[in-house]
């Protein structure tokens, strides 16, 4: 399959949910019609989910205590 120009243009804001209603409808219609884009879209969405999960590190509990201690003391 050949790369699709439309896909390059729409994919990023579509995945980031940064399209208005009208633009989103165009993107969804295109995804319904274009198997190439659909496949890539799924890949991109899965990849983002994977990266997000893989790189997320929770705050060490003792840091929360240190941050609380930075509060202005009540007189």
């Amino acid at each position, binding site marked *: 399959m050949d790369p699709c120009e439309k896909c*390059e243009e729409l994919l990023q804001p579509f995945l980031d949910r940064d399209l208005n209603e009208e633009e989103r409808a165009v993107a969804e219609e295109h995804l319904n019609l274009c198997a190439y884009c659909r496949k890539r879209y799924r890949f991109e969405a899965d990849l983002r989910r994977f990266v997000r999960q893989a790189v997320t590190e929770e705050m060490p509990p003792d840091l929360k205590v240190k941050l609380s201690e930075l509060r202005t003391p009540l007189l």
Partner: protein
Amino acid sequence: MGETAPETEARRLAEDARDRVRFEEEALDLADQVYRVARRMVSSREEAEDLMQETYARAFRSWRSFQPGTNLRAWLLRILTNLNIDRGRRVQRAPDTQPLEEGDYFLYNRLEEVNPSGTDEERVIERLSQDDAVTALSAVPHDFRDVIVLVDIGDFSYNEAAQILDIPVGTVMSRLHRGRRILKRELAEHAVADGASADGGSGA
């Protein structure tokens, strides 16, 4: 009869203290979310902890400049981002000059090449490890990485990311686009390297 001046003053102080305590509690409630973003903007956990403490110290000092009703998480990250830049913590790599003509599907295509039989998307991503993702993200230059971290980990909109970083929305979009391509190129290198060693192990 109205209040005397000292009573008015006492009431004002009490209200002020109450507002401040509420602000501090709300800011602390967001610390977990702020940390997740901070952690990926710097290279070590120690740096992230220092940056968080500096950010909260400054936020608590200048709480009056926060406008109630606006996005407190974005406000905190704006402070954090500025501190991170001011402190010169950004050991900036050489600007990314490698061409990225391959386009958005470079990683996908490379993974398909490595494993032509496993073309379905999930299996392709299964080849990547958590370490691959962490290493690949940290290899993305700061300007690009900050935007990816804010949007993909912090769930900020393009507009919010633009306000936090004090850059135009168009710049957010172009940095995201380029940053994600760099990220995918880095991931592809790991995936291909892992694939090659796996093939070597099972080969002949």
